[in-house]
């Protein structure tokens, strides 16, 4: 029990330090850019109809969140191990009673905190802009629309329906899960990588291949009229890479498709399992790595 508590404390301490380090690296400038994109986008879209404006705002904002979270996950994680090796900080840490799996989990925890904070900030900013634009559209409609109170109420209800939907919250949560999965995958790559650049390149490639995994998987599973070498290649892609398309639900959510909670939780669980698998394999490699 005491040992478990000590392990948790050590992981927490490494996680906190990693988070502080990452924030000091000015990765939060990404968030500033995101804010400018969303706000600038919202001002630019004023000439569209309110339905178009909300559609664009949600598409661009969730798309921007997806880009920045994926970039943040890969860039922040890829440099952690190589930098610690270069600075020789890793030797100081591992010379203390810190297990290697604790060190890796602490590092991953730091990135997870960073991604969570980033998602919260970006999500809040996005919802604020959406709320602001919604209220502006409501005020304009109240001022400009004559007619019966029923007609006005119907128009206002239409605006509210086009603006906010509760499904936007799970959409953002799934983006975070995807980011965490990517950071775990990048951590695994960085345990065999000799430099940060190598880890970034391999993880970015894995990101693109992960989005094609479903195509390779279905091609492999169909097994019709394909050569043996194609079969081996598609099997390799299907088995070694995660199905990242499973986490791209926000496109359809913005289009108005209702997200069943069963699919949401299954997607979250799939992300958690992948994260655990990549972390476990990273630990296996790191345990036997000569430093």
């Amino acid at each position, binding site marked *: 029990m005491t040992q478990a508590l000590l392990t948790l404390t050590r992981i927490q301490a490494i996680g906190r330090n990693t988070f502080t380090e990452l924030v000091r690296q000015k990765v939060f400038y990404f968030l500033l850019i995101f804010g400018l994109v969303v706000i600038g986008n919202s001002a630019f879209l004023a000439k569209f109809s309110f339905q178009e404006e909300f559609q664009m705002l949600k598409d661009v904002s969730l798309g921007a969140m997806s880009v920045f979270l994926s970039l943040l996950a890969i860039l922040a994680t890829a440099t952690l191990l190589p930098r610690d090796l270069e600075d020789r900080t890793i030797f100081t840490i591992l010379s203390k009673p810190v297990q290697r799996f604790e060190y890796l989990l602490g590092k991953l925890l730091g990135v997870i905190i960073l991604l969570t904070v980033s998602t919260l900030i970006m999500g809040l900013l996005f919802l604020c802009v959406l709320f602001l634009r919604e209220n502006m559209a409501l005020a304009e409609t109240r001022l400009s629309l004559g007619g019966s109170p029923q007609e006005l109420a119907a128009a206002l209800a239409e605006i509210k329906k086009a603006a906010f939907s509760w499904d936007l919250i799970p959409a953002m949560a799934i983006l975070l899960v995807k980011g965490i999965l990517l950071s775990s995958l990048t951590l695994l790559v960085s345990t065999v990588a000799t430099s940060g650049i190598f880890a970034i390149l391999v993880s970015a490639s894995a990101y693109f291949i992960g989005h094609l995994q479903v195509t390779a998987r279905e091609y492999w599973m169909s097994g019709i009229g394909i050569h043996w070498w194609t079969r081996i290649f598609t099997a390799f892609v299907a088995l070694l890479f995660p199905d990242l398309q*499973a986490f791209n639900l926000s496109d359809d959510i913005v*289009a108005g498709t209702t997200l069943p909670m069963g699919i949401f939780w299954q997607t979250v669980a799939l992300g958690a399992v992948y994260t655990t698998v990549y972390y476990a394999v990273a630990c*296996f490699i790191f345990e036997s790595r000569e430093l």
Partner: protein
Amino acid sequence: MSGLSSLRRNLIAILMLAVAGAVLLPWERELQRDSQAAHFRTAPLNLSLREQIGQSGFLAALSGFRAPLAAFLWIDAHSAWEKTEWGRMAGLFNTVTTLQPHTLLYWDIAAWHMAWNASIAALQDTKQQSELLRERARRQYIDLGRDFLERGIKNNPDNYLLYERLGILLRDKVEDHNAAADSFAKAASFPDAPNYIGRFAAYEMAKVPGREHEAYERLLTLYHQGKKQWMPSLLAKIRELEKRLNIPPDQRIPETGATGTGSAGSSPSH
């Protein structure tokens, strides 16, 4: 563990990943099937889209940025509209709707631009001397608008909106009242469809020779739903059909029905 050679260690790691991938494979496939059943992950990313959006656009779409890409192309289409580049607009709308086939707004507005704005612009095109060719271009744009709505319906059969829009297009632009009536009737059959669509369906049926009785029955059903349906247009159309169909006076709706007073409160003995 530390005795493992680097190559052996990496091979074991790859094997571990492959085993995990094999275990997760059935789950991933089932999740994909469930998602598709709930209308997620159904947009096709194929070679025709690759030709439409170019290599980098296709890469962006593949990488999970379908929606932002569609949004940017929509903005581009808006710029094309300001320059009245109708052909470019049609191409961009095609790409946007392929990228985001479940966004009703894109189908709806694309169809409206083609069938209303582009068709009128084609008819008033001063560069084209031949009136015949101008009229032909007008009809082509209307057909393009209709095509957007029909493809939109194919992709979103569970929503009333595009059926309603198709009904309006068929009524106002094609003047095919029979098809318009069917489209409005289909839209009205959805539980969340606004009341007026049911009236539109009946009004269009009333214009089609041979469907007057069907129209009359529909209008009467709406009339019996209560005062909220007693629009002047509905009452006028019922009275017109009563005359055309020679409905016996005792089965006709009360004259005071329009004001909602007197005997209008009681249902006619139909």
